[in-house]
């Protein structure tokens, strides 16, 4: 605290102001700035084909932002190796611009032999960190480094109702330390509510046993408030979601849903599925936190590892970098 002439100390340690200074306008200033610059958000969806990844992303951002809408035909053949396809869109809401990049991974888990199908994904994530690191390390840096790092990876779990598949645990184990993983149970309308609860319990237990730290990670909770919020969320994860981009009329309202012969599954109805919870969590409360954790923790881990390696970053001036880490 810098003691101001107009302040006086009180016992709790904070200074009470004797007049209005206007410090709180900084929030408004920040807001204006952010609105002007806009921000980037990169989301990756992983899961084998047919789990509704593209549909869910479209539903989340209420627009056709997925690869599927960008001209992918319905009967496109399953690729032989895992491909990484990134599609970017700029969406705007309330004056705030967001450059949303959806990274899709077709071919994941679809082959007969799926050994190492997580490698292309791991490589892509590390490449984005590398790009950012290179920009950061430059002598003349850009004012705003373009951020292509993956902020969040949504992993789609197949709704078998029994256990996690071997591929799921393998993937999450390997990638939970380089990116924020949010597991979701796809196509939740396959299961009744009881089945869903049982399945969730089992999945959570398995994730715990395998030591997989999904986002929000317990170790990064900053204070008690965060902890209690995040604990509630962790209890409810993995969210069982249903996606849809079609609208139907229910009780006079137009809702997003899936129409089956025995009823309409409402996507945003919390009694039907947990999509609304996922959306609130992902976008309305933890979007900035996801970016921060990616930048402060995952990226820093990568950077430290990289700079500690032999050779450093500039192989040309190898004699310098062998002693000093830049």
């Amino acid at each position, binding site marked *: 605290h810098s003691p101001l002439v107009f302040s006086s100390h009180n016992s709790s340690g904070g200074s009470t102001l004797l007049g209005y200074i206007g410090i709180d306008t900084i929030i408004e200033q920040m807001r204006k700035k952010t609105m002007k610059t806009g921000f980037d958000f990169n989301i990756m969806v992983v899961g084998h084909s047919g789990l509704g990844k593209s549909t869910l992303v479209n539903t989340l951002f209420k627009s056709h932002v997925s690869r599927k809408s960008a001209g992918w035909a*319905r*009967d496109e053949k399953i690729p032989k190796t895992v491909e990484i396809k990134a599609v970017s869109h700029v969406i705007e809401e309330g004056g705030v611009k967001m450059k949303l990049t959806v990274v899709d991974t077709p071919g994941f888990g679809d082959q007969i*032999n*799926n050994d190492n199908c997580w490698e292309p994904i791991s490589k892509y994530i590390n490449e984005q960190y590398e790009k950012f690191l290179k920009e950061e390390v430059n002598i003349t840096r850009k004012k705003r480094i373009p951020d292509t790092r993956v902020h969040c990876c949504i992993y789609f779990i197949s709704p078998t109702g029994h256990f996690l598949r071997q591929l799921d645990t393998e993937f999450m184990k390997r990638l939970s330390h380089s990116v924020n993983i949010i597991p979701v149970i796809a*196509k939740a309308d*396959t299961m009744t509510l009881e089945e869903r609860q049982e399945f969730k319990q089992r999945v959570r237990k398995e994730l715990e046993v395998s030591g997989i730290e999904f986002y929000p990670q317990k170790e990064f909770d900053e204070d008690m408030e965060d902890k209690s919020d995040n604990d509630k969320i962790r209890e409810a994860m993995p969210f069982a979601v249903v996606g849809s981009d079609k609208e139907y009329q229910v009780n006079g309202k137009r809702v997003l849903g899936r129409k*089956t012969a*025995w009823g309409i599954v409402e996507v945003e109805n919390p*009694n039907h599925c947990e999509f609304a919870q996922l959306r609130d969590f992902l976008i309305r409360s933890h979007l900035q936190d996801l970016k921060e954790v990616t930048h402060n923790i995952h990226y820093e881990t990568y950077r430290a590892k990289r700079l500690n390696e032999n050779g450093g970053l500039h192989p040309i001036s190898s004699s310098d970098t062998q002693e000093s880490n830049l």
Partner: protein
Amino acid sequence: ILDRASINRMRVSVCVSLKQRNLEGYVGFANLPNQVYRKSVKRGFEFTLMVVGESGLGKSTLINSLFLTDLYSKDYPGPSQRIKKTVQVEQSKVLIKEGGVQLTLTIVDTPGFGDAVDNSNCWQPVINYIDSKCEDFLNAESRVNRRSMPDNRVHCCLYFIAPSGHGLKPLDIEFMKRLHDKVNVIPLIAKADTLTPEECQLFKKQIMKEIQEHKIKIYEFPDTEDDDDNKLIRKIKEKMPLAVVGSNVVIEVNGKKVRGRQYPWGVAEVENGEHCDFTVLRNMLIRTHMQDLKDVTNNVHYENYRSKKLAAVTCNGVDTSKTKGQLTKSPLAQMEEERREHVMKMKKMEAEMEQVFEMKVKEKKQKLKDSEAELERRHEQMKRNLEAQYKELEEKRRVFEEEKANWEAQQRILEQQKLDASKTMEKNKKKGKIF
């Protein structure tokens, strides 16, 4: 390789050759079907059903729903509840009775199929199982005492496709390609309540397209002479692959008790034709086509296995008509084969004879060589003998010469002596006179 079409053609050709005669009274063999029926009922029936698919696709639930029993209950959880590292093949037998008819139902489950990260060859245990059952039947058929021939062959394989909504996975295609000529494969779309009706239609079309693309031969319903039946069959064919939902939980809907799944937005009824194709599957599998499945297994898949197995065992020279009978080979083909065999036999004999000849020639040569060597040896020996004798002779001669020389020397000395003696006598004589 036989298939259903060729068997039908053969049947037709046999029937055409008989003339139909009219009866002049009631004979009574119209009762024959009843006799067959009564005998079969006494014997009881056997049926083996195999279910294949990744875990969590509702296979156990579907089996329970189909046969209205709890084959897999809470106390004995289905194989998918237990985590498996490799593909196992497990069978469970159940005896079901209904209306006096006994059915020994064997359910073969394949837990662990498609669950690992690397699923290459996960179909191999399944193929091995089917082949081993066919082999058991083949051995039982070939025995001398054939009193009891239990039929454990797999009559039908239900393959569960995950309801992705896109198409077949590489694993699905690979599996069906390898099993379509060993067993009747019926593909099903599992957990069909995941899909909306439009998605389901698109998915079915996509699957059928891929099945045709890869030339997979799934089980085909036979055409009957009855037109009504044919219409039904055509309707069923349009619905393939069948989209099923399984459940044994009874829920009340509009006052009616139905089996279904309760969701917050409604109840998906298992036996409702609008909701899923479960009733179609059940009727087809149990009520109308069970016998046909067994027949096709026996006449087509088993015969294919048998001919392949026995053709591999028989070698040249054995009577080939034992293996298949007259059904498969046309006379020309048989002649061709016999000719080929004969030519091969001749070739073999020729080769053998040549071999023998070669051997004999070698022997003779060897013998000659031996005798030559012998002669050589003897010649040497004789030469040596000769030389020895020659040497001896030389020696003797030398000795003789020596002796001769000695004797001559002695003779000369004697001569000299004689001369000397005579000279002295002469001298003495002269001396004597002088005096």
